[in-house]
């Protein structure tokens, strides 16, 4: 095993272990953060970074083969769909009147005003209030 192969292996394993670290941090964030918005932020951002690093590391391990092409396709697919799914979830929570923790008293008058104009009735008791 010459120097170049050791160098490639090192880069690959740095990417894979970095991706694992990002995934682990995202999972801890999903469990430990206080409310919905911070949790979805932790999961989406850390998962995108971890997925990219893991795919990159596995591509380097695979070399110039069909496996690498499939991994690149998987990476592109997840890179498009992950943030889109996060956007859909966050958008649904926003539309249903679910505010970040601590913003309830701050924004109550404005939401109540918008409710008349937009016909978007802010409920007194949102089913999601209090955290998931």
């Amino acid at each position, binding site marked *: 095993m010459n120097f170049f192969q050791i160098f490639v292996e090192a880069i690959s394993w740095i990417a894979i272990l970095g991706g694992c670290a990002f995934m682990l941090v995202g999972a801890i964030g999903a469990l430990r953060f206080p409310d919905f918005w911070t949790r979805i932020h932790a999961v989406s951002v850390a998962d995108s970074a971890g997925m990219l690093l893991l795919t990159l590391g596995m591509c380097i391990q695979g070399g110039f083969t069909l496996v690498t092409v499939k991994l690149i396709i998987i990476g592109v*697919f997840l890179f*498009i*769909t992950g943030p*889109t799914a996060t*956007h*859909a979830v966050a*958008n649904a929570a926003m539309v249903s009147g679910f505010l970040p923790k601590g913003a309830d008293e701050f924004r109550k008058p404005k939401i109540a005003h918008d409710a008349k104009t937009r016909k978007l*009735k802010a409920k007194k008791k949102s*089913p999601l209030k209090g955290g998931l």
Partner: protein
Amino acid sequence: MRHHLILRVITKLLVGPIIIFALYVQFHGEYSPGGGFQAGVIFAVAFILFGIVFGLEKVKEVFPAWLVHKFTAIGVLLYSGTGVVSMMLGANYLNYSALNPENPQAGQVAGIIAIELGVGITVAAVMIAIYYAFAGRPPVIDDEDW
């Protein structure tokens, strides 16, 4: 759904590749993991995704409900028809070797592709029919009743 710009653009981008991937899983089933059932589900997912984002009416224009019900039967007919053909050729039910007596392996490949196609068509049609049945029912609970 008019305000979901990102979801509409991404859905338009993804429906085609999802269908291509379903066909890949369908016709690559005897070499790699996959097969008719998985391919049918992936094929149905493309239509269900389109229906969720663009609405039930739009997806029913693409794939009308009466056609879905026909395809549900056509798949089963293709599956059992392959078995009946092998019976007509003098072998047991679903014995694909009879399809090509000079080269039994080629006959087996052809038979597997035929019945996997039948399974895929039926599964895709049934999944889409279930989605139509669930999405098309009248809303019994209003949003205010929660």
